[in-house]
């Protein structure tokens, strides 16, 4: 068998070489070539363990290839290509290098065959990605990046703790299926859960993604969470609790997404909601469901990148991605507007990738006889279509023209952004048009036809009613823009009609959370103050002690040790 260079190392080697190349088109071309070469390598991989290495006397698996890892490896490489094309105009070496390292770590993690290798790449994604946030250069971005980094590193620390406990219990480091039960497996689940943005562990996601550079957010949205989904599918397929966690994930972010002003944050919440679909399918764990996970990860990476790219282009051209400052942009950025609408449609409309993958997940839920979850997913589908597929393009590109009186209208996005978005849209379309080819890549051999009348009908009904409701309300002037700086908009439609209950829930949860966090903050402050009193530069633990006091400690310890050793029976 021809020796294949591990794709993760292609990225890492390229990241080392890159700074030496002169800035400009040559370097940009080199950047674009890297993921293509990696994808070509992944394409040629044959299943099985292809690379092992020795570390600390353990024999570890650098490359474990099977259909599941190939699907994720391919989509990660392809998405990295699209993101780099989108970022063609960015000349910042730090962002270029960290993007390569980030993609390389994510792909390395996907092919990892044991927890040690997984952990190394796991932390690699954390450290590399934070620079995409810091690259924005604002003080807010710095602190956001710091918070993000701490949470991501914590996930790695919990992973290594879980791995140590698990190894101690079973003697195995293999990154394979686990049964939830011991402390170690729970720790591993929580580590995965942080990156997969489980409810309550999700706060980093809407915090960090909108803070990155226009191009950085696209890159961020691709890897970290989908890597976590992959890891869950690898280790916890069929774990029932994931079904319920996923259901909460489908609903909870919707509440915030519906009220958010920053459109990139809306997408971050929408992303979290879509992760819920995949987590549910992992929880179901049948071959059909796992095919759904892989398919939906692919589709979701594509259409969510497309939406983030569109919003990134808006931010790049207008300087803002806040709904309160946008509107009527279709006059200046018609192609971006069109592609953004395609991205919204690609979430679940027939003929697009999202339809195929969502149908897979819905069918697997139906086959597992979970009618409530099925209904919840349908509702979640509708909700997210309303928020990200209809409301978001409307707020950005239609409605009142905010740039009518401006001296200079914003320009259309640059060619490379348009090309990247166009390619992404085309891929969404291609996968939706050729479901059989799409299916042939999936890890399990399960016959499935997405385009049956009932699937099409169910999804179309939901979507069209959502859309009709939206446009009816719009026609009567009931859609209002969120006011700047206020998280909850005064949009009475949201409050009174369609999402009244949801909003009430949001209100209650927000207030409860506020109360809890205020109390917790007070406690934490008091705790930190007491730590500082003892350990700060003037505290008793850090002062320079006079020799006499030091000697006193010796006497105390001597006395205590003597008493202790005499108290033992002879």
């Amino acid at each position, binding site marked *: 068998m021809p020796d294949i260079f591990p794709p993760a190392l292609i990225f890492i080697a390229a990241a080392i070489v890159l700074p030496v190349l002169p800035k400009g088109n040559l370097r940009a071309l080199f950047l674009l070539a890297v993921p293509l070469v990696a994808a070509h390598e992944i394409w040629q991989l044959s299943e099985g363990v292809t690379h092992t290495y020795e570390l600390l006397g353990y024999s570890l698996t650098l490359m474990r290839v099977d259909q599941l890892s190939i699907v994720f490896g391919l989509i990660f490489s392809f998405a990295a290509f699209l993101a780099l094309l989108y970022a063609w105009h960015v000349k910042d070496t730090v962002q270029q290098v960290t993007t390569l390292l980030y993609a390389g770590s994510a792909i390395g993690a996907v092919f990892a065959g044991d927890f040690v290798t997984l952990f190394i790449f796991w932390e690699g994604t954390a450290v590399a990605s934070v620079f995409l946030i810091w690259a924005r250069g604002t003080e807010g971005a710095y602190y956001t990046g710091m918070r993000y980094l701490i949470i991501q590193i914590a996930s790695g*620390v919990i992973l290594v703790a879980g791995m140590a406990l698990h190894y101690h219990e079973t003697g195995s480091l293999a990154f394979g299926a686990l049964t939830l039960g011991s402390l170690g497996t729970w720790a591993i689940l929580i580590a995965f859960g942080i990156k997969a943005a489980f409810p309550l562990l999700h706060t980093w996601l809407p915090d960090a993604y909108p803070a990155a550079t226009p191009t950085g957010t696209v890159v961020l949205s691709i890897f970290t969470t989908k890597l976590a989904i992959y890891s869950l599918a690898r280790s916890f397929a069929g774990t029932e609790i994931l079904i319920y966690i996923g259901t909460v994930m489908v609903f909870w972010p919707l509440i915030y997404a519906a009220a958010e002003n920053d459109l990139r944050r809306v997408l971050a919440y929408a992303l979290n909601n879509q992760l819920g679909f995949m987590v549910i399918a992992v929880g179901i764990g049948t071959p059909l469901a796992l095919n759904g996970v892989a398919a939906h990860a692919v589709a979701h990476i594509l259409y969510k990148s497309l939406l983030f790219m569109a919003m990134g282009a808006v931010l790049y051209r207008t300087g803002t991605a806040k709904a309160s400052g946008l509107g009527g942009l279709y006059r200046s950025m018609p192609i971006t507007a069109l592609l953004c609408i395609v991205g919204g449609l690609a979430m679940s409309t027939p003929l697009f990738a999202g339809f195929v993958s969502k149908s897979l997940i819905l069918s697997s839920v139906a086959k597992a006889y979970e009618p409530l979850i099925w209904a919840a997913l349908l509702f979640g589908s509708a909700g997210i279509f309303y928020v990200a597929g209809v409301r978001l393009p409307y707020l950005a590109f239609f409605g009142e023209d905010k740039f009518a009186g401006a001296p200079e209208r914003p320009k259309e996005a640059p060619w490379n952004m348009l090309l990247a978005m166009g390619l992404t849209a085309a891929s969404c379309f291609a996968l939706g048009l050729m479901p059989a080819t799409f299916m042939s890549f999936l890890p399990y051999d399960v016959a499935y036809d997405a385009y049956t009348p009932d699937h099409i009908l169910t999804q179309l009904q939901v979507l069209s009613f959502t859309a009709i409701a939206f446009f009816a309300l719009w026609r009567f002037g009931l859609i209002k823009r969120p006011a700047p700086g206020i998280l909850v908009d005064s949009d009475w439609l949201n409050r009174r009609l369609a999402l009244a209950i949801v909003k009430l829930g949001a209100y209650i949860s927000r207030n409860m959370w506020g109360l809890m966090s205020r109390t917790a903050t007070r406690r934490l402050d008091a705790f930190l103050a007491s730590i*500082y009193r003892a*350990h700060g530069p003037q*505290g008793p*633990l850090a002062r320079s002690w006079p020799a006499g006091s*030091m000697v006193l400690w*010796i006497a105390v*310890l001597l006395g205590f040790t003597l008493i202790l*050793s005499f108290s033992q029976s*002879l």
Partner: protein
Amino acid sequence: MLSAILAHAPALQTVVPLIAAPLCVLFGRRHLAWAITLAASLISALFAAYLLAQTLDGSVISYELGGWAPPLGIEYRIDAVNAFVLFIVASVGALVALYARESIEQEIDPALHVYFYTAFLLCLTGLLGVTITGDAFNVFVFLEISSLSTYTLVALGAGRDQRALTAAYNYLIMGTIGATFFVIGIGFLYMLTGTLNMADLAERIAALGDNRTLRIAFVFIFVGIGLKLAMFPLHLWLPNAYSYAPSVVSVFLAATATKVAVYVMLRFLFTVFGFDYGFQAATLQTIVVPLAVIAMFASSIVAIFQSDLKRMLAYSSVAQIGYILLGISLLNKPGLTAGIIHLFNHAVIKGALFMAVGAFVYRIGSSRIEDLRGIGKQMPWMAAAFVAAGLGLIGVPLTAGFISKWYLIQATLDEGAWWLALLIVGSSLLAVIYVWRVVEAMYLAAPVQDAPVKKAPWSMIVPTWIMVLASLYFGINTELTGKAASTAADLLIQATQIEKAPETVPGAPAAGE
């Protein structure tokens, strides 16, 4: 010729620096003194490497000094345990000698350089002697040689900061009390057994069995050495001594002095006392484990709040000694292995960190964190060295620090003490905070200096990077450290009955798929 010299390697190990020390004063020229110091410490390091190679398979070298047979004569006894420590001390000594030349140019009055080199060589002699000897009283003698020269070395920092004098004075008082306690303990043992040779002591103590004199001897030796190795709360001399000493002295002390004291503790606990008495286990488990855990947390938190980099690293050392003591007190083979590995890894990591700080002091005359803002761009090599070694201090995978912590966590889990494992992980997170503060100042803050800062001289960069690369190398390839530590742990355990059941060695079974 060569074989004749190597046959006397144990004696030459201490004799070479001992003879070189007065030569420095006799010649009286500082450049010559440096050349002598470098040569002597390099030769020492070669001998140490040779001795380690000889003993790595578990064999024991016994060398009778002056041809006098033990137990009357003094015996040098080298097994994997002390050969490993000798190797650490001598190789760090050689790197420090290389590094010292430029570093002391800035920090010590040129007229005193000769005395610096003399004291340094004497200190090296003392530390090597403590480690190599098989005679309990000889340990005391060498301990005093190293301690007295250390007080001098610390006091030489007065050229930069007068507080070095009080730091040295306090260290002198504490060190003397420690040494006195130690010699009182030896006295009790001598009274009890009539011998001073360690191997002989062990046999006679085992024959006599448990008694009160033995217990008193143990307690005095334990507290005396506890002072020397800066066991919390007997560490109070350490932060001042490390922060006000000349930078190169901080490097040397942090990497070697406490490590040698830990070795003496191991030797007495396991080889001499033999560890079959309940009072020893009780002492370790009731006193050392809690103190080690407190040290891990309290000292790390104190380190977080420090504004001076050297002081921060000093408190971090107290915390790291906590890890070593914790490993030893677990009283199982993995724990001992972890303690010994961390002894080595921490010496390398902390040595590298102090070397980087020494370079900052050399260029900007300050080790305050606020003065280091923006230094990452101005002194890229040293800043990068600090970050790489700092990662090791935290215990990031692929660095030596991770290996230590991995072994330590496995050892606690073997004892079923998963809460200790959690505490180890938790305290490592504190290291993230204090290392990060420095990284943030070095790379993310705007430079504070208007004038451009030059790169550090190569004679400082090279030894620093050797240490850093070693800390990375031993994080990937653990063959040497793992083997030496586990052989050493085996030897220590063989001398005792603490082996409860066949132990599993972490790292031995091949895992994975």
